[in-house]
């Protein structure tokens, strides 16, 4: 089913022309995937499927509503770019997904495996429980023995199949001479089965077959919940990555070919259209434009680009088309070198011990000692191996960590589900626990606290006639500053002046003729003004000095609320940015952040985060750019917005799916609540043990008591977790 990856490669002529490593083969069928964020009902499903199936060349198209995706099988020459307009005309937002990046979620073998084992454990435990209840309610002699034998016949194969994950984990731990949570589980299972079988042979009264199976079932349920939570987060994270289909336009003898970025080689000529991102490091050969470097350095002022300038992968081309010659591709680009920094910082995080690991460390040796003591004590008292072994098995089973196994996953599933609804994606298993400990929050500026879209600040200072001319010029350009000016002027009810012959000069601005005089809107140097410290577009009308329209970066929605709420919760809020001092000071003032650092290099950022960590503070880093990745990885826990660069998203523990920053403050609250619930759950589990263990050691525990203790503790723990919803 995954015979052809990246089907549309072969659809472009360049790939056929380009030398291919390996045998060239033309696929007869292409597989495409589209993301459809807007679909929500039956009508959407049938419209999308009808539209797609009616399109020539498509064999089958099927919508998956859960994943909000359409999977399409089509002729190899059908391209996603042709299908998107079709769907947009029908009223659905559609984006192409890179199938190669989605491959991991497509066949979810591990999840399926766990589900099957869970089903078998459930089936077997219910059947054995039925038989056990008959025994507890008074079956005796031959009937009891028969029931025990039937139970044994069901239990052995069921446990051998279902409990495999525990056997495997325990074996890996034991082989390197360590103890983990699975060792006592396996020991309890094996001991329970062996003693029960022995008892059955001797027509004994108590057999723990049902306990062994319920134990397996509850523990598998915990594992499965844990797995599902992470699978959901992983698939959403993969979808974000798959939305950026890595393609570039290669120029070959004057013709344009669309090729995957991975196929680019050093020396290739690449065309980057306005709005496009540099796929590789290179040097500009022709064209003039402006570059947005904010994702790499954090500076908001666009950089003027002309032939000869070196560009790095990840920079965004703003105004005019640029042709660049690749100087470094793939792993050698500066983007990748920076991403490598992350891998180094990442290793530090694995030192964190999760609550579950901490509990297991206390618990595993404890049960073994307890059970061994019970065995030794009873053996010395009665000199009867059978009694001693039975009691040791009862102790192990009753202390077995059903509730412990469910305590953490049940809570994290509930908390992650709640945060996911708010638009937060918890990527890392222990992210919630770490988030709960946070006492310092470090924000990046550009793209994180600010939306990256400029806003005009001094529209009121200009004469109406000037604004009319500026609006006419701005409407002719797609530069972000022009777009912002158009929006602001239109909102103020201004109509454009009748400016003629408007032309956009890439990299400089727009000019035209108004009542016979030349008018210009653009860079300071172009209109003969001095460059100020603030982002500005200058208007020259021929009459008087050039006048600046000043810009400031618009705040991201919820930024002010998030900062205020975090401060109200008693957290230290810091702003560290690579932007100029003026811009950072202004923003810090607007958001009321007293501690800020400007003009920070990427290494400065991570060093400062490290310094805070060394002072014993638990740092939450929120950032989006490449210059933040090292800091994101060095922080105790990190959050990045969905608009962030891939490398930054990978480095962070939590991804914000929406535009709004407000959920950050709430997430801290939810995380603290979740950790509190986890601790409560541990206490509940311990409480049951405190009651049941003395009974087991005294030899009073029966399989009925074990079953009751196990089920009630597991159910209370799950219900307690549900209170979080």
């Amino acid at each position: 089913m995954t015979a052809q990856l990246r089907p549309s490669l072969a659809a472009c002529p360049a790939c056929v022309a380009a030398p291919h490593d390996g045998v060239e083969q033309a696929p007869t069928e292409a597989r495409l995937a589209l993301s459809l964020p807007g679909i929500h009902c039956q009508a959407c499903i049938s419209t999308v499927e009808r539209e797609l199936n009616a399109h020539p060349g498509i064999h089958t198209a099927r919508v998956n509503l859960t994943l909000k995706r359409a999977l399409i099988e089509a002729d190899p020459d059908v391209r996603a770019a042709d299908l998107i307009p079709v769907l947009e005309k029908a009223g659905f937002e559609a984006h192409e997904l890179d199938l190669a990046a989605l491959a991991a979620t497509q066949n979810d073998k591990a999840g399926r495996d766990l589900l099957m084992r869970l089903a078998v454990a459930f089936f077997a435990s219910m059947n054995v429980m039925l038989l056990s209840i008959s025994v507890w309610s008074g079956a005796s002699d031959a009937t009891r023995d028969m029931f025990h034998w039937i139970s044994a016949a069901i239990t052995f194969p069921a446990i051998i199949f279902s409990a495999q994950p525990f056997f495997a984990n325990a074996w890996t731990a034991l082989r390197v001479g360590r103890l983990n949570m699975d060792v006592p589980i396996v020991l309890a299972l094996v001991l329970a089965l062996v003693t029960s079988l022995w008892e059955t042979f001797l027509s004994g009264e108590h057999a723990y077959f049902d306990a062994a199976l319920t134990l397996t079932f509850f523990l598998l349920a915990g594992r499965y919940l844990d797995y599902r939570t992470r699978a959901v987060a992983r698939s959403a994270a993969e979808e974000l990555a798959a939305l950026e289909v890595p393609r570039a336009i290669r120029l070959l003898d004057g013709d344009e070919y669309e090729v995957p970025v991975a196929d680019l080689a050093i020396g290739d000529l690449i065309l980057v259209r306005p709005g496009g991102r540099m796929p590789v490091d290179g040097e500009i050969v022709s064209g003039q434009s402006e570059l947005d470097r904010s994702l790499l350095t954090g500076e908001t002022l666009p950089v003027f680009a002309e032939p000869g300038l070196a560009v790095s992968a990840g920079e965004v081309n703003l105004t005019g088309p640029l042709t660049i010659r690749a100087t470094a591709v793939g792993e050698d680009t500066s983007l990748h070198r920076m991403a490598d920094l992350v891998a180094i910082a990442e290793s530090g995080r694995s030192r964190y011990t999760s609550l579950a690991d901490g509990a297991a460390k206390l618990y595993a040796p404890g049960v073994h000692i307890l059970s061994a003591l019970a065995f030794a004590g009873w053996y010395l008292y009665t000199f009867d191996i059978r009694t001693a072994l039975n009691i040791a098995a009862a102790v192990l089973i009753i202390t077995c960590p059903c509730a412990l196994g469910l305590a953490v996953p049940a809570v994290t599933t509930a908390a992650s589900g709640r945060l996911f609804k708010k638009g937060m994606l918890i990527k890392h298993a222990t992210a919630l626990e770490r988030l709960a400990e946070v006492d310092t929050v470090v924000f990046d500026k550009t793209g994180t606290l600010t939306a990256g879209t400029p806003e005009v600040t001094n529209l009121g200072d200009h004469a109406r006639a000037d604004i009319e001319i500026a609006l006419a010029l701005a409407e002719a350009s797609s530069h972000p500053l022009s777009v912002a000016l158009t929006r602001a002027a239109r909102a103020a009810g201004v109509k454009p002046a009748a400016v003629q012959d408007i032309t956009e000069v890439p990299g400089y601005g727009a000019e035209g003729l108004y009542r016979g005089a030349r008018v210009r809107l653009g860079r300071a140097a172009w209109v003969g003004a001095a460059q100020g410290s603030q982002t500005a577009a200058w208007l020259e009308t021929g009459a008087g000095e050039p006048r600046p329209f000043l810009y400031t970066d618009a705040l991201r929605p919820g930024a002010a609320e998030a900062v205020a709420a975090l401060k109200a919760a008693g957290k230290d809020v810091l702003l560290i940015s690579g932007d100029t001092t003026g811009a950072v000071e202004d923003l810090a003032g607007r958001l009321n952040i007293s501690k800020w650092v400007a003009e920070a290099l990427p290494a400065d950022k991570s060093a400062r985060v490290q310094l805070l960590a060394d002072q014993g503070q638990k740092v939450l880093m929120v950032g989006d750019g490449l210059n933040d990745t090292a800091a994101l990885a060095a922080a105790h826990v990190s959050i990045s917005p969905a608009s962030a660069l891939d490398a930054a998203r990978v480095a962070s523990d939590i991804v914000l799916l929406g535009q709004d920053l407000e959920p950050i403050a709430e997430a801290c609250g939810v995380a603290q609540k979740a950790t509190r619930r986890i601790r409560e759950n541990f206490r509940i589990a311990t409480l049951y043990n405190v009651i049941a263990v003395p009974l087991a050691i005294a030899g009073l525990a029966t399989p009925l008591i074990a079953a009751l203790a196990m089920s009630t503790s597991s159910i209370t723990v799950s219900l307690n977790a549900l209170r979080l919803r």
Partner: protein
Amino acid sequence: MSVLAYLIPISLILGSVGLAAFFYTVRSNQYDDPEGDARRILNDEWDDKPKP
């Protein structure tokens, strides 16, 4: 009590039929799109005759 000789095997067989059915649904990808499948029942496109 001799009725147990029938009842126990019957209950086990019925149980395993259910288990086998579950296995079949998991293996044939029937849990890939629970939300979509719940809505597709409202589709009136193939109401008259089954999809060929």
